[in-house]
C-alpha cells in the first residue's frame, strides 16, 4: 500500500474513532457534565468557603485558584477516558478492530483528540463562570495564545498517560480507580495553596512535581507575570510524560497478542 493511501485510511479511521467517542460523550452526557460541574463547585467552594482562610497575599483568591481549577477539571475528565479505553480493551471491541486491519494509531488518536475536545468545552464553560464570580486576568493576547498552547500540550500528554494506565488495568473499575489517584496529585501542588505552607516532605514534592510547573506557568500567564523557567520545565515534563506513555502504551498493546 502506498503512503498516500495509508495516510488517507489513517485520517478517515481517526475521524470515525473521534466521532465514535464524541457520540459516546453526548449519549452519556451526565458523566461529562459531572466533570464540568465538579470543578465549578470546587471553584465556588474554594472562593466562598475556604478562600477566606487561605492566605495568598494581596491577590484575589479566585485569581489565585483559577489555574488550579482548570488543572483539576482536566484531571477529573480523565475518568471518562479511563473507563472508555478500558471497556474497549476488556469487552473485545479492540479485538474486533484489530481483526479489521485498523491502525492502532487511529484508535489511540480517537481517544486523545476526543478527550482534547471535551476538555476545551469544559475549560471554556469554567472560564466563563470564573469571570462571573470575579476572575480578572491580566493576560495579553500573546499570553492567551501561550495559555492555550500550554493547556493543549498538557491535555494531550496527560490523556496519553491515562490511555496507557487504562490499557494496563484489568477492569473499567480499576481503570477509573487509577484515574482517581491521578486526580489526587494536583492537590499536593501549588494549585490551591502555596506549597511553602506545607510540611517539609510534601513541600519538596509539591515544589518539584509537574502539576506545580504547569500551574505556575498558567497562573503567571493569566496574571501577566513573568513565567520564569516554569514554562520550560512544564513543557519538558509534558513531553516526557507523553513519550513515556506513548512507548509503554505501544508495548502493552503489542504484548496483548503474544
Amino acid at each position: 500500500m502506498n503512503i498516500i493511501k495509508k495516510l488517507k485510511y489513517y485520517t478517515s479511521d481517526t475521524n470515525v474513532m473521534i466521532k465514535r467517542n464524541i457520540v459516546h460523550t453526548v449519549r452519556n452526557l451526565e458523566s461529562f457534565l459531572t466533570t464540568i460541574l465538579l470543578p465549578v463547585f470546587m471553584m465556588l467552594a474554594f472562593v466562598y468557603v475556604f478562600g477566606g482562610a487561605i492566605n495568598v497575599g494581596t491577590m484575589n483568591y479566585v485569581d489565585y485558584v483559577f489555574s488550579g481549577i482548570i488543572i483539576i477539571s482536566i484531571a477529573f475528565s480523565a475518568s471518562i477516558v479511563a473507563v472508555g479505553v478500558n471497556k474497549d480493551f476488556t469487552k473485545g471491541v479492540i479485538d474486533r478492530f484489530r481483526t479489521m486491519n485498523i491502525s492502532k494509531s487511529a484508535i489511540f488518536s480517537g481517544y486523545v483528540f476526543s478527550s482534547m475536545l471535551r476538555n476545551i468545552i469544559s475549560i471554556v464553560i469554567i472560564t466563563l463562570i470564573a469571570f462571573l464570580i470575579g476572575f480578572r486576568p491580566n493576560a495579553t493576547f500573546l499570553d492567551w495564545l501561550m495559555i492555550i498552547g500550554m493547556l493543549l500540550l498538557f491535555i494531550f500528554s496527560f490523556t496519553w498517560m491515562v490511555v496507557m494506565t487504562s490499557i494496563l488495568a484489568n477492569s473499567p473499575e480499576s481503570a477509573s480507580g487509577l484515574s482517581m489517584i491521578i486526580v489526587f496529585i494536583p492537590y499536593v501542588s501549588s494549585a490551591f495553596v502555596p506549597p511553602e505552607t506545607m510540611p517539609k516532605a510534601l513541600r519538596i514534592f509539591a515544589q518539584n512535581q509537574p502539576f506545580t510547573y504547569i500551574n505556575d506557568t498558567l497562573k503567571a500567564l493569566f496574571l501577566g507575570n513573568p513565567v520564569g523557567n516554569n514554562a520550560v520545565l512544564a513543557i519538558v515534563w509534558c513531553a516526557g510524560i507523553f513519550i513515556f506513555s506513548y512507548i509503554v502504551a505501544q508495548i502493552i498493546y503489542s504484548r496483548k497478542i503474544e
Partner: protein
Amino acid sequence: MTLVKRNETVIEVRDLEKSFKTIDVLKGVSFNVQRGSIFALLGSNGAGKTTTIKILSTLLKPQSGSAKIEGFDVIKHPGSVRDTISLTGQFSTVDELLTARENLTMIGNLLHLSDVKSRVNDLLEKFNLMEDADRMVATFSGGMKRRLDIAMSLLGTPSVIFLDEPTTGLDPKSRISMWKMIKEFASIGVTIFLTTQYLEEAEYLADRIAILHDGKIVIEGSVSEIKQMIPTVFIILHLNNESEKLKTLNIYKNRNAEIIQGTNHVKVESDGTTVDILDILKKLESNDIVASSFEQKKPTLENVFLKIVNNEV
C-alpha cells in the same frame, strides 16, 4: 451466484502450540477446513477453543506450529488474513451507546467500503433489524445484539467467518434463527469455523467436527463418522420403582448401566442388534423385573464427548 469449489482447503492448521505462562493450552493442534463447509470445534470450558480461534484470527501468536487461511500465514501475513476473515467473539462487541445503524456504518467506514449506506440497509433487512435500526443498542435483547454483531462481521464480505460460541446465552428461538443464518452463509460458499459447547448444535450444523480436549484434537470427522466410533445404541428401560431400578443397575453393570436422573429410567448399552436387545430383555425377565416399556436411543455427540473425556481422564 458464487462459484463454489468444494474440496479446497481454506484453513490449514499444523501442530499449533500455545501456552500462557506455565499452562499449556494447545499441545499440537492440527486440522483442515474445506471451502464452504461448517467446521465445529467442540470442547469443554477451558479446552482451548477460544485460544485456537484467536490464533486463527491473528489476535494471538502461537509458540510454534503454523496456520494458513486462504494460503496466507497468520503470523507472517496477518494483514492479508484479516482481509479475508471476520471474527464474532464470544462476548458481543457491539457498541451499546450507538444505534444498530451507527454500529454498522462505523464498521463500514472503517473497512473503507464505497457503498456503506446500501450495504448497511441490506444487512439490517437481512438480519431483521430494520425496525430497530435507529434505537440505541443498549436497549436490545441478547439475540438482537448477537444478530447485529454477526451483521457487523459480514460487512466486509469475508470468505471465512469465525464464530466463537455464537449461540451461548441465546433463547431457543434466537438460537434456531442463528442456525438458519449460519447454514445460509455456508450455502453461498462462505466457510464457517465455529466453537460451541452445545453438542446438539455441532451435530445439527457442522459438516465436520473436531473435539478439543487437553490441548489436543482427540477426534475429528463428520458427524456420522464420529458417531460410528462408538457403535452402541442405548436401550432405555422404563421401570416402576426404586428397588427395581437399583436391581437393574446391578444386573447390567457390564453394559455400563446408568440411572437417568430424576426418572425411573435405566440406560444400558447395546450393539443394537435384535439378538442383543433380546438378551437384555431376557435378563430382565429372569430377574423377575417387569419394565413398563423400553425405547432405543441413538448416541448423541454428548455421549461421544463424555466417553472420550472420561477415557482420557
